[in-house]
């Protein structure tokens, strides 16, 4: 194919001339994967026609991915169009969209929304009011308090709250939960307080990053920071780090923006392919082969009807594959939306199956979740404790992140459960997750401290095959315990794990 001059690529028809002349699938694949480095593709993507074509294709893929609701697609589309029209005001537009998103959808999880609505309906003073009439003022109160906290943090950075803002956040949440425990249910105060707690818990680590960002020289206005407590791309309570991080990856030139948008399109198309693969495999597993889900298999074992060991292993690895596809597709969509807005951030999941160590898998599987744990639990522990004992220092910091931080993150995200089950009941719902976090932390400590890492000279089997099988096997088994729903307890899950190796029942059913 003769390379047309980039300046000539100004229409979709001209862009069509960019397709590889050899029509083999490998040539198409190469052209697709390399398009964000291809001068002709970049030149076309930088034109108005190219930008329109990219946005249309992106939004079509977003809809096809089925990862976000129609209302979210509408907000994302509006924000992306606004960012495309006024790229110089991108951050302000994204912040504005984030504020709108927080007002329209104040809760992270459907269960939280349902809980808050039940609490409101149980309060006679509020029962007749539409939900939005209660929730919107609480969002505004939350934003106002966060604004005050950010201003105070900037002003008193040498005081305890200035130095340890996340500790301050945990203390504040603890006091709110304690207050929630003493206010009588069925009152307006109870409903309003738990509405506030649900909003706060969903934005907890976004606020933590906003506070952490203020340690640097970044003088972003407080109002703009508030727009990133609940960014428009949605998702659960895992932030893509803070605004400072996002700015690091902002496209500064039309060429960089074109490349970023092409990367976004590539990633969302990959996400759609993962969704399709997941749908096919799920149909194959659940309908054709009639496999139970992991929770169903655990329940069967708890009822004294365990699966044969081989079928149990099949369920474990099927669950691992489906989880990887589900998690990968969802987070690729989130990252693709952020890239389309003009921020070329790294992926959340990047080839996790290539990991040769547990620590590497952890880094590749959910990069931003790991970053939250590292930023708010690992580094603070590492900076303060066991400075004269390097190995103990790393072990302690790793445990603080992978176990303590991991469990606290899950508890904070579902803080509303305390209203329904009490503190002890909530902790008991997490017993299996706590076990998972402890084992994960110990395994990560060992993985990090092991001097002997797989090396190419170990040969294909010992470098490329066995370490990866070990890593995949470990994380596939750990999925049995990584349960935050409270569906069956640790004993039942240990029982299922024991059934995989033909061991005697753990709980004696």
């Amino acid at each position: 194919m003769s390379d047309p001059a980039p300046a000539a690529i100004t229409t979709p028809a001209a862009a069509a001339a960019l397709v590889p002349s050899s029509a083999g699938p490998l040539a198409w694949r190469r052209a697709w994967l390399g398009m964000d480095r291809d001068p002709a593709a970049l030149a076309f993507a930088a034109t108005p026609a190219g930008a329109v074509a990219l946005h249309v294709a992106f939004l079509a893929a977003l809809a096809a991915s089925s990862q976000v609701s129609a209302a979210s697609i509408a907000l994302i589309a509006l924000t992306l169009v606004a960012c495309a029209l006024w790229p110089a005001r991108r951050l302000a537009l994204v912040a504005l969209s984030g504020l709108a998103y927080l007002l329209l959808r104040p809760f992270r999880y459907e269960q939280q929304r349902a809980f808050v609505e039940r609490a409101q309906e149980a309060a006679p003073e509020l029962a007749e009011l539409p939900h939005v009439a209660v929730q919107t003022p609480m969002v505004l109160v939350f934003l106002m308090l966060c604004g005050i906290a950010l201003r105070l943090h900037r002003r008193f950075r040498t005081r305890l709250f200035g130095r340890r803002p996340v500790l301050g956040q945990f203390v504040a949440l603890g006091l709110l939960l304690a207050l929630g425990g003493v206010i009588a249910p069925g009152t307006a105060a109870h409903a309003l307080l738990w509405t506030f707690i649900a909003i706060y818990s969903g934005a907890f680590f976004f606020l933590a990053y906003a506070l952490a960002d203020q340690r640097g020289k970044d003088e972003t206005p407080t109002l703009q920071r508030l727009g990133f407590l609940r960014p428009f791309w949605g998702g659960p309570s895992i932030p893509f780090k803070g605004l400072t991080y996002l700015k690091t990856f902002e496209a500064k030139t039309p060429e960089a923006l074109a490349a970023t948008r092409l990367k976004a399109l590539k990633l969302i198309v990959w996400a759609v392919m993962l969704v399709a693969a997941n749908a096919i495999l799920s149909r194959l597993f659940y309908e054709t082969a009639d496999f139970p889900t992991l929770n169903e298999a655990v329940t069967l074992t708890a009822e004294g009807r365990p699966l044969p060991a081989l079928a149990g292993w099949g369920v474990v690895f099927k669950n691992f594959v489906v989880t990887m596809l589900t998690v990968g597709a969802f987070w690729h969509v989130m990252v693709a939306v952020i890239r389309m807005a003009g921020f070329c951030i790294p992926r959340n999941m990047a080839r996790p199956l290539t990991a040769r160590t547990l620590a590497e898998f952890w880094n590749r599987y959910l990069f931003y979740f790991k970053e939250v744990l590292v930023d708010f639990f690992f580094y603070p522990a590492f900076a303060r404790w066991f400075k004269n004992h390097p190995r103990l220092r790393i072990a302690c910091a790793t445990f603080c992140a992978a176990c303590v931080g991991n469990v606290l993150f899950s508890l904070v995200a579902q803080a509303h459960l305390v209203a329904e089950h009490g503190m002890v009941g909530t902790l008991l719902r997490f017993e299996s997750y706590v076990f998972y976090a402890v084992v994960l932390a110990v395994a990560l400590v060992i993985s990090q401290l092991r001097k002997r890492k797989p090396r190419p000279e170990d040969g294909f089997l010992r470098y490329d095959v066995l370490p990866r099988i070990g890593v995949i096997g470990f994380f596939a088994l750990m999925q049995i315990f990584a349960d935050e729903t409270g569906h069956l307890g640790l004993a039942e899950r240990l029982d299922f794990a024991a059934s995989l190796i033909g061991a005697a029942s753990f709980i004696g059913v």
Partner: protein
Amino acid sequence: MGKYIRGLILGMLAERGHAGPVGEHDSLFFSGKLDSLAATEVMMALERDFGIDLADADFDVTQLDTLAQIEALAAAHV
């Protein structure tokens, strides 16, 4: 000092399979080229060789994302 820090970072990158050149302002940790364990090695080196106190309220780990930032941090404590 600059040569020492660059050697340290390039060694870590090579261990993790990144053999290409690294610019002064290329992101090392945010971009995922280096992981948090590598960050701890850099931090320990900064403590050991330049006397930087990581528990200092003004210390910000985001200051360590590029070679230029690490060198500037070290230079400020020499």
